[in-house]
């Protein structure tokens, strides 16, 4: 009999709430209060998340974010700045000791990315894992991923680009000067792709989620059972949102 994990879809949350949910699920799972959980989510308004170690002021043009109505947040995971607009974001929370999760961090990246790769395959897209934390298709990045391990629990979240507007992305991220900006946009266009670009037609979030859900079930040989956030998690989300992710002290800490 297949192991049952929880499966959540939470659409249109703010950047602070999304990061608070991931952290709350991690804490609840670490205390044995919820099973391993896979979540698919979207961001509203669009947002930039920066890696834990990044400097907000060095990465993001905060004035332009305000002008465009784009939110921002510091993640608890490392990695780079990501513009979350037309994409599917996933997270998985699972105990470090779970037999499906390699002890080695790099190996566990590969394993979890394997679920995303199967999810893309279910949409007709061939892709592969490229260490450290990318998934590429046709030689271009389609997914970025970041993992943390806290309280003996693994949290990995990542993106699958459904469509991408590189000019908009670069108007929000800080680049050294205009000449370099043009070069970077040109370079990134060569290095980044999306589900729409590869398939030639737009795939909705819901359709992509169905394919990804199957991908996680196939990779980990489990059944994902639709669930909802518990009352305990809702309390934690509110706490983490206020104390951390919606708090300027956190977002500007580096």
């Amino acid at each position, binding site marked *: 009999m297949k192991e049952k994990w929880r499966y959540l879809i939470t659409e249109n949350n703010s950047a602070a709430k999304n990061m608070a949910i991931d952290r709350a699920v991690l804490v609840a799972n670490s205390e044995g209060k919820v099973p391993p959980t896979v979540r698919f989510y979207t961001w509203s308004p669009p947002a930039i998340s920066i890696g834990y*170690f990044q400097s907000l002021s060095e990465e993001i043009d905060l004035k332009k974010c305000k002008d465009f109505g784009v939110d921002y947040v510091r993640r608890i995971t*490392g*990695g*780079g*700045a990501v513009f979350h607009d037309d994409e599917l974001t996933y997270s998985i929370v699972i105990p470090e000791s779970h037999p499906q999760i390699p002890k080695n961090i790099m190996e566990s990246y590969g394993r979890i990315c394997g679920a995303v790769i199967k999810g893309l395959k279910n949409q007709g897209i061939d892709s592969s894992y490229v260490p450290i934390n990318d998934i590429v298709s046709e030689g271009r990045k389609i997914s970025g991923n970041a993992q943390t*391990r806290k309280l003996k629990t693994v949290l990995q979240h990542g993106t699958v680009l459904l469509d991408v507007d590189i000019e908009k992305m670069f108007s929000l991220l800080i680049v050294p000067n205009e000449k370099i900006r043009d070069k970077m946009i040109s370079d990134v266009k060569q290095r980044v792709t999306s589900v729409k670009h590869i398939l030639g037609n737009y795939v909705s979030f819901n359709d992509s989620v169905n394919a990804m859900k199957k991908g996680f079930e196939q990779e980990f040989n489990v059944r994902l059972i639709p669930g909802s956030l518990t009352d305990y998690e809702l309390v934690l989300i509110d706490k983490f949102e206020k104390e951390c992710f919606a708090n300027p002290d956190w977002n500007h800490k580096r």
Partner: protein
Amino acid sequence: MSQKLKQNLYTRSKNLKITQKPVFNKLSTCAKSVYKIPDGKLLRISLDYNDKNKKILGLLITGDFFVYPEEAIEILEKKLVNTTLNGKILKDKISNVIIENKIEFIGLNVEGLVTGIMMCLK
């Protein structure tokens, strides 16, 4: 930039609840470097150091790398204060902090950190 760097470092010192503020005086020199770690990630160093004795007064290690546990980066930054800006001394100090605190780097390494810090002097 210099004032901003100092502000950054001071803000960090408050976050870390360091009781002693970084010492900013006329010998204090601020510098930054950006270094792409070979086969790794982008590392940015913001450094404040004593230009006379070449000791670190404060630094920020930022970038798109991974450090496990994440909070260890702040321990490392704190432990490097008062360290002399010398490649071997820095390498030994960073290596010791990594062992003591069971830190794991991904996309970052000791050599890259030393290079990034020393680049601030050029």
